[in-house]
């Protein structure tokens, strides 16, 4: 579990990035908080810098959208989903619970981080 920031520091429509074994992008989508791996599954682009539209985030480079609820990409070029991570609020502080790094996907994410 990683503390992100206070709720009021992440207003609706905003995003931030925290380090929790991998880089994780955290979003406030109209009052709902979501967290996904920060690195787009396609190439070196940071989803926390993407445009937020409802509960979809646009990869800032390729304009592929990811559904923050499921991590699923909606179109080319992203081929694989990004991992999603549970978010909780405790005493007004946003926390991310990063999923264990067991899938091949997370290995890819780590490799990309190493490259970056």
């Amino acid at each position: 579990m990683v503390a992100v920031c206070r709720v009021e520091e992440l207003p609706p429509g905003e995003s931030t990035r925290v380090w929790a074994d991998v880089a994780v992008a955290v979003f406030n989508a109209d009052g709902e908080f979501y967290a996904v791996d920060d690195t787009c599954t396609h190439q070196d682009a940071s989803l926390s810098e993407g445009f937020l539209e409802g509960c979809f985030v646009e990869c800032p480079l390729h304009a592929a959208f990811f559904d923050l609820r499921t991590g699923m990409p909606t179109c080319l070029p992203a081929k694989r989903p990004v991992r999603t991570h549970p978010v909780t609020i405790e005493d007004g502080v946003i926390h991310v619970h990063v999923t264990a790094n067991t899938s091949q996907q997370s290995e890819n994410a780590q490799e990309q981080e190493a490259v970056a």
Partner: protein
Amino acid sequence: MRSIAVIGASLAGYSAAQQLRAQGFGGRLVLVGDEVHPPYDRPPLSKDFLLGKVDADALALGEKSDLDDLEAQWLVGDPAVRLSRTDGAVELLSGERVGVDGVVIATGATPRRLPGTEGIAGIHTLRTLDDAARLREQLTSASRVVVIGAGFIGAEVASSCSYLGADVTVVEAAELPLVHALGRSMAAACAELHGDHGVRTRFGVGVAGILSAAGQVTGVRLASGEELPADVVVVGIGVRPNTGWLADSGLTIEDGVRCDAGGITDLPNIAAVGDVAQVHRPHLGYATRTEHWAAATAQPRAAVRNLLAGTTVEHHDDTPYFWSDQYGSRIQFAGSVTPGAQARVVEGDVEDRSFLTHYEHEGRLVAVLAFNQPKAFGRARRQIAKPGLVAA
């Protein structure tokens, strides 16, 4: 329509094949490609692939299951050489004839070469995976590289070569590269990146000739008389659309295949997408080609819809967008710099190489440019006046 051939299996062709299935086309689908490789992504070729950070497998546009899901017949390594006017069949180099009811033309473009340099080793263009692999193999930290052409491809190659430790000079015939695309102040900001990173530039001077010995390039002679020694020369002076195979098709060929605003050619059963398509722009009053990655993924949606409908029911959303990664900077641009548009930095600072610029024309935002400001760019891109999105 029971059978459709997509000619060209790169980003635009592959996207068209995906769109055909996504939009419910259940008939026979044939993909024809001149390269043997499965569809791959070209932008990293001049960047991470050239640097050795990613290998060819990482560039695949789809995994095997994605390709299988298309349930297509793949004819690769066998370029189309003719589209018959009489029966609409596509002939391949091998002699195979593909008879179909509909065609999507996605044959892309080929880099222009310097005349008279055929057969000289060490002179490269960069378009395909094989091109990039050949260039990468020849680059060492001791290489003396001359890049001819300072557009985005040339700049990215210069950046990558310099990162690998090579001694790099960029030559450009124009006084200021990209001035037409970006306007004077922003083109200057891009041009300064070379010098920031120890890459020499020779702008405003043409190439008079290539120097070679025993079939290997040794240098480049400029119109000024200066001679630049070189082991490797990379030529990035633009592309020409691959339309030679359509000479007998009866389609209108100008700078690319003429299409209406929805990607349909003179014939309702033939569409064209990507670099090869010269698309009518209603708001400009003329037709242009768009050589951008984003257009190759976006155009197939409307073009396929129109092809399946048998008539143009949707126009392209044609706000151009492209990006370039060079010298550690991410440059993003969207819109069109109309004559008379004024560039204004609205966030950050050009000196810091981190800024957002608006281009305004008669009170309207017509384009945006960002250096290392992806978040601000994503917002600004949506504020561009949309002249082209019109229901037919």
